[in-house]
């Protein structure tokens, strides 16, 4: 059904006079895992912000399971869409557990303590992201990767239908990249969550995501199976870098690597 999912209908947006989104139509369904790629400044984060409801498109509209997003209150929206930002305010003196508990803001009573339902949502979000082991450490004393996992835990505690992530793997080491992406795959399957992640890493996108959308200059220029898109020269040329294709040794997924400018002989670094 067309009205299901989180959808942008010809959405346009400009921060100043230069349009950042040009009549973008895009849909994310429940249980779907989509990577959003594109060069810097192509409008990926803006599309994420428009879909999340914190930015209103100047033209076009956003609908959530058939309802115009503007007609959904902030509180209800926070129970349906969660966002994992790139970073939070740097000077945040709250302990990790308190930050994750803020994920329950849209459920909590203004004065009363969190309910047992809230508590268990917080606990399972912390366990799933592996932040329980440093639950009482202060947020601003954590490493970038630890902070990213805490932000993911906060979003999971919201228990939403849709999860939007802005470059979630960027501060993570290989171990945590692996566990984060496996976790997203599992969440999609277990909870039927629709996942949309801005990804710079095309190889992770093709390895873990079933759909890849490529943006350029405020428009979506390619949208489909990662393997097919990465085989298209026009889609790769957008990134403005010389790229070579290869295959993932285990799954056969298309992978791309940078090509060096010099001839192979000059690259030989043998003594």
């Amino acid at each position, binding site marked *: 059904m067309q009205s299901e999912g989180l959808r942008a209908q010809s959405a346009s947006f400009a921060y100043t006079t230069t349009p950042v989104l040009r009549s973008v139509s895009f849909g994310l369904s429940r249980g779907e895992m989509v990577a959003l790629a594109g060069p810097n400044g192509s409008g990926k984060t803006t599309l994420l912000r428009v879909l999340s409801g914190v930015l209103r498109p100047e033209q076009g509209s956003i609908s959530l399971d058939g309802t115009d997003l503007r007609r959904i209150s902030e*509180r209800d929206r926070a129970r349906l869409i969660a966002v994992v930002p790139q970073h939070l305010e740097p*000077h945040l003196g709250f302990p990790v557990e308190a930050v994750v508990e803020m994920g329950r803001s849209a459920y*909590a009573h203004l004065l009363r303590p969190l309910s047992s339902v809230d508590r268990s949502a917080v606990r399972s979000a912390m366990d799933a992201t592996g932040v329980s082991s440093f639950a009482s450490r202060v947020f601003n004393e954590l490493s970038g990767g630890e902070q990213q996992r805490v932000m993911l835990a*906060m979003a999971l505690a919201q228990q939403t239908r849709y999860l939007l992530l802005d470059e979630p793997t960027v501060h993570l080491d290989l171990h945590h990249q692996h566990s984060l992406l496996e976790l997203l795959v599992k969440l999609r399957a277990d909870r039927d969550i629709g996942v949309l992640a801005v990804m710079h890493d095309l190889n992770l996108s093709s390895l873990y995501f079933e759909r890849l959308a490529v943006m350029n200059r405020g428009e979506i220029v390619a949208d489909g199976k990662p393997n097919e898109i990465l085989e298209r020269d026009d889609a790769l040329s957008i990134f403005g870098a010389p790229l070579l294709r290869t295959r993932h040794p285990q799954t056969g997924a298309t992978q791309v690597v940078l090509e060096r400018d010099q001839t192979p002989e000059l690259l030989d670094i043998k003594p």
Partner: protein
Amino acid sequence: MAQFNAISRLYPAQKLPAILRLLPLILGLLVAVVLATMYGAVNVPAGETLSVILTKLGILHGHTTWPAGDEAIIWSIRFPRVVGVGFVGAALALAGLLFQAVLRNPLADPYVIGTAAGAQLGVTIAILSPVTFDVLGFGPLQIAAFCGALVTVLFVYGLARTSGRTPVVTLLLAGFVLSSFLISATSFLAEANHRLDEMMTWTMGGVAIESWSQLGVGVPIVLLGAAAVYLMSRHLDVILLGEEQAAHLGVRVERLKLAAIVLAALLTSIAVTLSGIVPFVGLVVPHAARMIYGPGHRMLVPAVALGGAGFLILTDLVARTLLAPTEIPLGVMAAILGAPFFLHLLRRSRRDYAI
């Protein structure tokens, strides 16, 4: 107290229930009230002071065993002043807490960002204008102070805000410049009307509480204001994550900010009409409370209100008695006592400053 569980582990002495953790502040405030009422030009013994206050409040019923003169000093002169100063302290500390949270700026307080100076100019205009009426201490003075405070804070905030943030430096510069301008404009107005001396005392925080009737409107407003801040406390925590993330979590950010700024301007203007400009309370008390209680607002709001009241009552006691019969302006004394206390806390605190 779910959220405090995590904070309790971080601030080890904080495993007790909230009311017990606040107990030292509550007792401290009560002691401060008694001390400040006992001492002055005439010293009255503690027992007698307490008896007068409790009898007058209707808590104690017994024979009057004290001279009528003492009763007049305690109940009609000193106690209203102590209560008034306490509410001024609580109002300024709460205003500082609100500004620091919604501007996400550790250096925001009613004095620094010019709100107090705006209220002061409003008061000066009201005093010089021929319009007068007074209902339980509420009149043109209070209205003008509120308008002055609100216009100033909205102006400074608008000036300092660039692309969704209020950078520290811009906010401080805008606040400092506007504050200086408003203070000079106040002096200019006063001088032009040959009332500069009177105004100068007040600029430095001269307490102008002489009777109960002046507190009729201010006290309920501060009490209601404190309750309103407490209701906002969960959202004040969330907005520290940043405005956009707060919106993702379901907070109506613009509405929260507007409510906080109007409330802070209201609290500041009440304080200014009662005691002129008192610096430092709005800055020092919230930071001191954070160092002890952590960043959660449900603990900070009561702590800051009690602490602000106690701090300013003791400051006023010192200001009245140190060089008696000369009275040191409250604002001067607040800075002299507040600065070293703050530096001590800053040094003792092991953590990097975090809001």
